[in-house]
């Protein structure tokens, strides 16, 4: 019953969201993670999310540019199974931390790069962040819809996508290593994360005609599959197939809608934009008449898919969320009691376990150096010289 990745050592040099989050997913599943930071700390330390993305790790703060730091890092790499970094290709070379070099120190090393736009190509050295990657990769224009202005997307989806892909790629490489005995380089980017998060929208064929919208589609554009405002609050109605659509018409006492030729092929196949708006406004008028809970109860009894629009604070109290242990309590030495996400994937025989809170900057510098075989005298020298 030990966590599936127990016994592995991960050195996380990444900053931002994606790399640290990927490292955290592996840490929850048993990997021992050493987070290597510059002496100023990970730039995202000021975000509340960093308490989550760095939980269970130990922190080693180093002057990354100093010559003596190389030796410390190389000693770490020699005993590591996985390294994650997010340097630009040029910077990795400058720091002498590129794959070619490290793989010679440790042929079993799995070296994961989480870049912004990829290791090659015209944008490989372009500065940026999640917003830049999301805008470039189509997420913001896609949210607006063809024919409409783009919309800023608040969730850092490119970063989250890249985090999941990195965790996946690293684990696949660990599997390969069991057979081949060799490590390799794993590459993901915020760009590839953004594409993976919209693989269904990033498709083209001459036979597909993209749908252009003449009005905003922010509350949805399929009448039976969209947001509606009830008397008091909003709900999402999700009649995702014809059976659900027919049930809806019956429950609303509006069988005429199911028979109306304008709305034939509802939910997905109402081709005329005008007819979609007509049906949307009919449904909106009906749903506005009664409060949210009235509709939720009615629809749930009839097995019509629907859900209340709630806030994150409310969802944290949700009985199914509790049941899945998807919100856990972790004591943080600075923030106090925190509530944060649990472990999203359960391996029944080898489940993960959250190891603890996020480390303070450099909290474990001395311990880690001692484990690498440095004497106390040497460690205080490092400290005096501003290396740690």
């Amino acid at each position: 019953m030990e966590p599936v990745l127990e016994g592995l050592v991960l050195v996380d040099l990444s900053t931002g969201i994606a790399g640290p989050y990927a490292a955290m997913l592996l840490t929850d599943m048993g990997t021992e993670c050493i987070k290597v930071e510059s002496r100023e700390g990970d730039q995202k330390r000021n975000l509340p999310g960093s308490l989550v993305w760095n939980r269970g790790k130990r922190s080693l703060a180093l002057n990354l540019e100093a010559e003596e730091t190389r030796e410390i890092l190389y000693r770490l790499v020699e005993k590591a199974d996985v390294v994650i970094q997010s340097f630009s290709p040029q910077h990795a070379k400058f720091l002498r931390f590129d794959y070619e070099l490290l793989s010679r120190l440790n042929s079993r090393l799995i070296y994961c790069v989480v870049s912004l736009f990829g290791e090659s190509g015209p944008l490989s050295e372009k500065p940026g962040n999640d917003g830049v990657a999301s805008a470039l990769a189509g997420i913001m224009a896609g949210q607006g819809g063809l024919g409409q202005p783009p919309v800023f997307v608040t969730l850092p989806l490119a970063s989250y996508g890249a985090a999941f892909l990195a965790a996946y790629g690293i684990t696949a490489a660990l599997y390969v290593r069991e057979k081949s005995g060799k490590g390799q380089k794993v590459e993901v980017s915020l760009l590839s994360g953004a594409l993976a998060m919209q693989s269904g929208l990033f498709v083209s064929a001459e036979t597909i005609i993209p749908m252009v919208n003449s009005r905003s589609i922010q509350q949805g554009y399929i009448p039976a599959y969209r947001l509606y405002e009830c008397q008091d609050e909003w709900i999402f109605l999700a009649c995702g197939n014809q059976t659900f659509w027919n049930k809806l018409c019956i429950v609303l006492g509006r069988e005429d809608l199911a028979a109306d030729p304008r709305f034939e092929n509802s939910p997905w196949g109402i081709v005329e934009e005008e007819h979609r708006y007509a049906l949307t406004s009919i449904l909106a008028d009906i749903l506005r008449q009664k409060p949210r809970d009235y509709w939720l109860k009615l629809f749930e009894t009839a097995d019509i898919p629907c859900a209340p629009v709630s806030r994150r604070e409310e969802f944290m109290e949700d009985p199914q969320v509790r049941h899945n242990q998807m919100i856990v309590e972790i004591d943080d030495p600075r923030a106090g009691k925190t509530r944060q996400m649990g472990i999203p994937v359960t391996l029944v025989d080898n489940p993960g376990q959250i190891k603890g809170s996020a480390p303070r900057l450099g909290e474990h510098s001395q311990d880690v150096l001692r484990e690498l075989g440095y004497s106390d005298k040497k460690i205080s020298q490092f400290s005096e010289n501003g290396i740690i």
Partner: protein
Amino acid sequence: MTEHAFDNIKVIELGGYIVGGLCASLLADLGAEVIKIESLQGDNLRGLLGSFQGWNRGKRGLAVNLNTEEGKTILHRLVKQSDVLVQNLRHGVSERWGADYATISNIKPQIIYCSMPGYGQNGPYIEKPAFDPLLQARSGAMAAQGGPGRPPVYYRIAICDYAGAMLGAHGVAMALYHRARTGKGQHLHSALLNAAIAVQSGEFVSYAGKPEDDPRMDEWGINATYRLYKTLDDWLFLGCTEESSWPVLCRALGKEELVSDPSFESPAKRQQNSAKLTQILETVFAGSFSQHWLDRLEGAGVPCAAVHHPQDLFNHPQLVENDLVAEHNSTDLGVVKQMGMVVKLSETPGKLWRAAPGLGQHTDEILSELDYSNEQIQELRRKRVVA
């Protein structure tokens, strides 16, 4: 040495939609041989022609009626030679089809069985139907995207489905790693509900004294320097977060005077006077073409981006150079362009096998591999067990 990471790994996908479909495709990308099992009516999302390709590339397709005994036998014969089964069936269906973990692991003890239901393995909601936007709504994503006092917003990206698919693939890879070490398979599970939280991991954290989330200023951004702007011909995104970029930005825009303007002298001041600053920048950007501004900002090292539609990216040199665009011939749609290799492994790079299968496109081929004779296959077709 294996050529692709998941060479010789055989995967069965049952359920479809986005989460099951994409999870299995991600495994196929790294070399697994995936068979997508559909009912005779097909995956419910086949109607979304293009998107269906994006969720189902790299597989072979088998259409079989699992409500029949002969259909179940086909599934069980397939399970005997498979390594992984991925399913996102509605609660109760797997038992009806003889596809639940107990039955499957009895037939093949080393199986890695990945379930990704809407809400969980058990608990108060498991009977409810689940679609991605219902989890977007419940989990707070829609309310937060809309912003306080404004209507909620429906994410056009099925964020819970996509996150679930990737987490599922990660889970399967972990279980394969474990099996390579111990010879043992196992059951692993996630849920759209879990994915809804994982795709908001930085937002789902609370503690006393936590700073308020940056409220979205309007539909176009968080504040004046992290925002979409309309130019003379198009839109661009300005992603200026570092304090050191501020004077550089002002100079690049020819607005040197803003650097010394006391209303904007610190991040706090700029946040406080965001509306005023936004107005100034809107006027500046509206004065010229996107390319002009992008050249200037990029030349000065200010983070920014052209705003592309997904449809505009197929020839983008950055994507092409990084193998992020792939092309296949599909029986249904002809030549299809879509995303390429989103995870690159240097030694075992994976493989873009093929476009998404037509409904039952490989039924005969797969049944012959299971040693069904041509006559038996014809008989199964005639009885509407397969198609």
